[in-house]
């Protein structure tokens, strides 16, 4: 019988990281999700990160569960308990464990003898052997091994087995026959650990009540729900990681919520296009015809859509594009995360073009901004980007329950319907009737007087073709004005002031939110630094952003790309001075963690004497 001997003196309650190393295609993701959900159901906040390869079967994959009683939302960067199920990555995995941590491995086969660390507790459990003894079918054995290590971790950290039981029942609701073997596997691991390891681990779970108003959801699913609630009736797409699950989500919600119960017909239309050029073309066609339409994609898709994006911009057709960013350039690392398309989205297409871009930071904002994006696209008659990323889009985040206000109505922007057209003498598509830069549009086919011709070639404010300099410029200037006017209509920044006078701030965007806030807290606690915080939520920049920056000597601009793309936009589109803006760049493909931020801030402050 192995005795667990932690090198760490004190027990860490509800504050540690479990990482599971496995081979993809072995069904481990659902077991890992189950483990995380169980902790969440115990009322303890969690952060989950699925680090998977761009491949279907056979390559290393990891799942990180951060248990964070304090409710941090970023990745921690530490590993306290490593479940090392993959022989191939075993050496790396052992190396990654933080001093004082624990490593659990399958002791069915001898583990590489050379690999070992004094400062890590290594626990072997014959998972494969136990599964082979208890289950007949080969695939079942593989699957059950995953459930077995869930049981082991449950025993060692104190996961409530009743919660696991409930979750397994929910999981196999449709196939109740699968419940007993799965519970058997969990219990097998649980019992083995209980029997063989006597001393408690240094890492313990204790039930809290901090998650009852929350859900665990990924950003793509939340965005899909946002599209449903925004009243989007048309979606076109071409599959691409990590955006695929957005359309999968939209489809399944529509099947559930949007099929006419009487006729069985669909109150939506989803088309899998032949490529991204076609997907955006379809969205433009549907929008032009008066429907709310969107396409989810990732970087390569945006590159391919560039020509059409300029068309929509110049001919003023609304369109909503979700760019769930992955690591670029080119094919890059399709299953890693980055914020590398910020500049592209802001200025996509040839010629002078500026777009509206929303930057959600978590699934809740994916939902909210999806809804917002359709309003903005129709209000400003222009393409609107929702710039999410793989981390937000594909990982399950703890987030407040999504809610809907039934009195909310979509803002369809300025549309002359039949009755309006009856009243006016003549309709001109690009005329700035109200002086706000936004012309009126009509729904093709609705009324003879509303007919107009849309083109991406030079046109006058009346909508006619032109090659005349002044007439051309008139329209192009108005379009810029319209974009500028959007600055106060897009979501304003999130600002968190530390409450003390300070000359330092951190400014960031999207999913860096949690890591930045945690870094600020640490720098306050450990270095006694007072730091204010701003998170950009949209482009064009809300005036509050430049007002905020004006108050600091140093604004650290934290973003996940190599080229400081957000900083470029800030420098270009606000009054901020360049010397105020100090970049912190974290672009290696992993969800942001506070370490790098803390280090960079310290370095910078030290360098300033």
């Amino acid at each position, binding site marked *: 019988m192995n005795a667990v001997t932690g090198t760490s003196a004190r027990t860490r309650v509800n504050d540690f990281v479990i990482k599971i190393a496995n081979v993809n295609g072995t069904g481990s993701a659902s077991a890992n999700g189950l483990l995380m959900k169980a902790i969440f159901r115990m009322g303890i906040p969690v952060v989950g990160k699925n680090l998977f390869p761009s491949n279907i079967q056979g390559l290393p994959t990891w799942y990180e569960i951060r248990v964070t009683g304090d409710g941090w939302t970023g990745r921690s960067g530490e590993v306290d308990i490593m479940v090392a199920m993959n022989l191939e990555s075993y050496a790396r995995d052992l190396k990654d464990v933080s001093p004082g941590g624990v490593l659990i491995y399958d002791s069915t086969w001898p583990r590489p003898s050379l690999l070992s660390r004094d400062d890590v507790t290594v626990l072997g459990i014959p998972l494969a052997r136990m599964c082979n003894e208890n289950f007949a079918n080969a695939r079942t054995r593989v699957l059950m091994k995953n459930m077995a290590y869930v049981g082991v971790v449950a025993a060692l950290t104190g996961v409530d087995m009743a919660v696991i039981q409930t979750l397994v029942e929910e999981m196999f609701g449709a196939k109740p026959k699968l419940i007993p073997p799965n519970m058997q596997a969990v219990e097998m691991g649980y019992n083995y650990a209980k029997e063989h390891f006597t001393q408690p681990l240094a890492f313990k779970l204790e039930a809290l009540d901090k998650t009852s108003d929350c859900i665990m959801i990924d950003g793509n699913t939340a965005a899909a*729900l946002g599209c449903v609630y925004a009243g989007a009736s048309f979606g076109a797409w071409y599959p691409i990681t990590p955006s695929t699950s957005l359309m999968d989500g939209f489809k399944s919600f529509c099947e559930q919520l949007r099929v006419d119960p009487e006729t069985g017909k669909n109150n939506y239309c989803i088309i899998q296009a032949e490529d991204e050029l076609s997907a955006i*073309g379809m969205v*433009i066609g549907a929008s*032009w015809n008066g429907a709310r339409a969107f396409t989810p994609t990732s970087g390569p898709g945006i590159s391919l859509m560039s020509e059409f994006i300029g068309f929509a911009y110049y001919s003023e057709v609304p369109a909503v594009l979700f760019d769930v960013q992955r690591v670029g350039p080119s094919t890059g690392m399709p299953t890693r995360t980055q914020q590398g398309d910020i500049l592209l989205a802001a200025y996509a297409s040839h010629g002078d073009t500026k777009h509206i871009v929303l930057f959600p930071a978590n699934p809740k904002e994916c939902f909210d901004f999806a809804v917002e994006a359709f309003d903005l696209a129709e209000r400003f008659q222009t393409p609107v980007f929702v710039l999410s990323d793989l981390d937000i889009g594909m990982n399950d985040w703890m987030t407040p329950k999504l809610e809907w206000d039934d009195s909310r109505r979509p803002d369809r922007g300025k549309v002359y319907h039949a009755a309006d057209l009856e009243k006016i003498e003549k309709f001109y598509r690009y005329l700035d009737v109200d002086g706000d830069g936004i012309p009126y549009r009509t729904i093709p086919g609705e009324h003879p007087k509303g007919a107009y011709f849309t083109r991406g070639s030079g046109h006058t404010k009346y909508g006619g073709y032109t090659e005349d300099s002044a007439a051309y410029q008139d329209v192009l200037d108005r379009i810029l004005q319209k974009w500028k006017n959007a600055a106060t209509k897009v979501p304003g920044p999130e600002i968190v002031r530390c409450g003390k006078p300070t000359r330092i701030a951190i400014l960031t965007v999207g999913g860096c939110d949690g890591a930045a806030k945690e870094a600020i807290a640490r720098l306050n606690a450990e270095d006694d630094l007072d730091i204010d915080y701003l998170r950009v939520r949209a482009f064009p920049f809300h005036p509050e952003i430049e007002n905020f920056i004006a108050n600091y000597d140093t604004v650290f601009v934290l973003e996940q790309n190599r080229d400081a793309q957000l900083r470029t936009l800030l420098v270009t589109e606000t009054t901020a001075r360049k010397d105020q803006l100090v970049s912190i760049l974290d672009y290696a493909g992993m969800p942001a963690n506070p370490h790098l931020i803390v280090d960079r801030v310290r370095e910078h402050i030290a360098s300033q004497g």
Partner: protein
Amino acid sequence: MTSIVKPRIDKHLRRNQLGLTVRDYEGVMSTLCAGCGHDSVTAAFVQAFHEMNLEPHRAAKVSGIGCSSKTTAYFLGQSSGINSVHGRMPSVATGAAAVNPDLYYIGVSGDGDSLSIGIGQFAHAIRRNLNMLYCIENNGVYGLTKGQFSASADIGTKAKYGEVNEQPPIDPVLLALSLGATFVARGFSGDKKQLVPLMKAALAHKGFALIDIVSPCVTFNDHKGSTKSYAHTYEYYHPVIHADFVPEEAEITAEYQDGGAITVPMHHGGNVTLRKLGRDYDPRDRDQAFHLLRTREGSEVLTGLLYIDETKPDMGDMNRLPDEPLNVMDYSKLCPGSAKLAEVMKGYS
């Protein structure tokens, strides 16, 4: 030029059932070269829509980029239109038709627009059986960019400045057949008598109706040695099947009963009648269509309605679209409301 106002002397013009004359189906003045085949196609459109009693604003015009694609501005001035980007009209039409299947979608493209940059979207619109009339104004060159060979130029065709094409042409008709198109026709801008009825039949078709129209470019591809010239087309021109649309209320006249006309009932009412011209050939038989096309290769310009299948589901059917177009569907039918959301949330708790 939109700046030129056309004289409107329409007092004595025939009015259709809607009380409209052909003038009501015209658009702005053409800016194409005098004699361009595309202008004749425009004229045929005007006549066909007039004869079909189409409410002008119930049509939507879609096109790409090219001299041909410009023409959607020259007819149906009272319809909305969208002149998109080069080669991508089919996708725009797809999105538009998905959310409002009730309009008539009139697509105009060129051989460059559809067979080079746009061949992918063209192929996939066929595959979806998108309900639209899709005309390729086929002149074997890129007119607007001044005379480069297009992918429909025949082997041996001479360009204006002497170059000879050596690459095999892409025949949109054969391509469409091999991709499963449900209405495949070829016309000639110089034969309005054939073209107008074809357009009417195509409008009545539920699904993708292709009319490949040989439409000579007088500026860059109408010289000797060009197989898309007027002279060459007249010489090798061979009408195979005459097709026309006969509205429900009208009787199939004797004219059609001659020569063993075939009547195809159309999904939205009315019939398309098919009259054989010279060959024993049934355009409802895809095998025969293939056979005819591959044996004619190069020697004749076969025209008429070469293939029709009125039985296939169109994109709307395949997507189970509702009767009420999505673009006007009330928000209450689209937004499931807060209670449903609360229910959905349970799955994530």
